[in-house]
């Protein structure tokens, strides 16, 4: 197996996250059969692929929900072993899940600080948490929330998504992974969330955006990584590719023209893997 990273230019800073040849099996099911992913600071990296391509599995592996069976993870150029969600948080990896992973019975502040509460001794420091939560929401230009002490259950889909994203950036995180953040949203709310995603990247974070929606992807993404049946088909620059090319990669796993347009060296996929088995 060739090492795709050997061609990487030496001058650029190492990407915030790099996955090389990640594999994950669930019993007889090979969910991931060699995925590569590069996410750089200040960029939105879109992760696309059809249903069952392994997008969710990949981000759960990165988040430590279930670790990779094989493969290499480099975080800011250093090899990293992400055994559980706490390890991912420690590195500065935050995931905003499709099902949001918020507790309906807790208010916004408690959701944002869940698992990492600010304390004075053993006592929760409610005032400090409330102040910090409000500051983060303000820095994200969130103005639609009435009170940060309201229960999450009373929020709209877009507001919930905002809370989940605010929670992810509360911790000086370096990599934020968003799993289909706009899937359940209306037009206006989608636009708001996409703007928020762009702001995160502009603030210097590495953002991975999982999406089915090509409009969303081409609106905010700098780089697009395409998964096909548990393998990385290609990672391309958004500016150098067309919608048709990306859709073809998603549906067939290869580019019909045979010329991988704008493929970044770090994510070039050896041809023997492009034609890998398709029985998964």
């Amino acid at each position: 197996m060739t090492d795709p990273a050997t061609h990487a230019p030496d001058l650029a800073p190492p990407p915030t996250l790099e996955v090389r040849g990640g594999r994950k099996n669930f019993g007889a099911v090979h969910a991931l059969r060699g995925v590569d992913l590069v996410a750089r600071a200040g960029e939105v990296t879109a992760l696309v692929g059809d249903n069952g391509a392994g997008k969710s599995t990949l981000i759960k592996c990165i988040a430590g929900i279930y670790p990779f069976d094989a493969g290499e993870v480099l975080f800011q150029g250093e090899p990293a072993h992400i055994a559980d969600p706490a390890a991912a948080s420690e590195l500065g990896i935050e995931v905003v899940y499709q099902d949001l992973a918020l507790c309906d019975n807790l208010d916004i502040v408690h959701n944002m600080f869940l698992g990492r509460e600010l304390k004075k001794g053993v006592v929760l420091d409610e005032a400090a948490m409330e102040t910090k939560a409000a500051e983060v929401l303000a820095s994200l230009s969130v103005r639609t929330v009435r009170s940060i002490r309201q229960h999450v259950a009373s929020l709209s889909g877009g507001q919930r998504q905002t809370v989940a994203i605010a929670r992810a950036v509360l911790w000086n995180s370096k990599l934020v992974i968003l799993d289909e953040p706009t899937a359940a949203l209306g037009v206006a709310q989608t636009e708001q969330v996409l703007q928020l995603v762009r702001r995160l990247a502009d603030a210097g974070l590495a953002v991975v955006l999982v999406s089915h929606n090509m409009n969303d992807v081409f609106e905010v993404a700098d780089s697009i990584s395409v998964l096909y049946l548990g393998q990385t088909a290609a990672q391309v620059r958004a500016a150098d590719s067309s919608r048709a090319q990306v859709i073809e990669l998603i549906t067939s796993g290869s580019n019909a023209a045979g010329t991988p347009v704008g493929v970044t060296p770090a994510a070039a996929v050896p041809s023997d893997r492009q034609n890998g088995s398709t029985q998964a």
Partner: protein
Amino acid sequence: MTTPTLSPSAPTSPLVGNVEQPTFGEAVSNYVSRVRGGDMGSLPAILALVVLCAVFVALRPETFPSAGNFANLFQQGALIVTIAMGLVFVLLIGEIDLSAGVTSGVAGAVLAYTLTLHHWAWYLSTLAAVVSGVVVGLVLGWLVARIGIPSFIATLAAFLAFQGVVLLMLGEGGTVPVRAPAIVSIQNDNLPVVWGWILGVVAVLAYGAGSVNTWMTRRRKGLLAAPIGLVVVKVAAVTLVVLGAVAVLNQERSKSAAVSIKGVPIVVPIIVVLALGLGFLLTRTAFGRHIYAVGGNAEATRRAGIAVSRVRIVCFLICSTMAAVGGIFAASRATSVDPNAGGSNTLLYAVAAAVIGGTSLFGGKGRIVDALIGGAVIAVIDNGMGLLGYSASVKYIVTGAVLAGAAAVDALSRRRARATGRV
């Protein structure tokens, strides 16, 4: 390596620093709309308590409102309230402990077995009884959280097994007496009148100072705070209830002139301390937050990096330990332990107390004070119906109806809460 941070823009936010503080009227109307939205808390239980008391006072004006009967209520309710406080933890994570009643029986049996049959010192026996609760809780929590047995089944199995354990320990002889003065006095002796007043005043002052301090801190930091009028009303209400109860309990309630019975029953401050400790754990610590989080969305809690099964085990541990403490109270009150200790209606009364008080059977919602208020409702029903001369059969039927009513209120308010976006 650069550490990316978000731009420190927008120093002013409508959420902090310059929030619009609500007026007294707004706070009250907010509360009304919350109740209408299905977030009723203990309101139904308090209303039920008022109605029940009014009915029993009207029907038994001589006996029900007497000082002696008022003290009785505390001593009768002690076991139920103590178990219910523990059950709140298990209910909060969306589980159930059907064995809490017989666990109190096991603790009572351990107490009697070591104290009377093996002549241990009372404090060692007490410790052994409490430790038996801890062990039971660890085993149940392990079965549920690690093995994955539904709590309904795991604790039903324990319910059966522990009845056997009690029989085994007490032997075929049946009832074993408990005569250590320290144990017996918990439920049968009272605080000196002066101490009742001192503790009552200290409690009220502490509550008042805490409330005002919280209010001032939040105001100073520009956070949303309840209007001061509401804080004053709450403190005044607590003062009235606490000092009023102390005043009634400090009255002479002996029927003969030869002996004097007055003062706050010793069990009352013990329960208050337990309630304050558990309430502190639940509302002021990160661990308490995690308990609510597990009840609200266990998967989200796991993804937040919290050890969910550890939280579950500790909740079962607290529940069984509180049941064991309740078992000691029961042994103290009866000055003996019989093979049926903690059986029959004990558990159902305790579950009813927690649910009537406003703790949800669906998890994620509940407070320690729910157990106290719900326990008061149960104690009043039990006591009042007894005074009216009804048999156990009628008491069971009424209590069952009240429990069904409380569970219905829980389910309906939950549906309403979902419809109006409050959980």
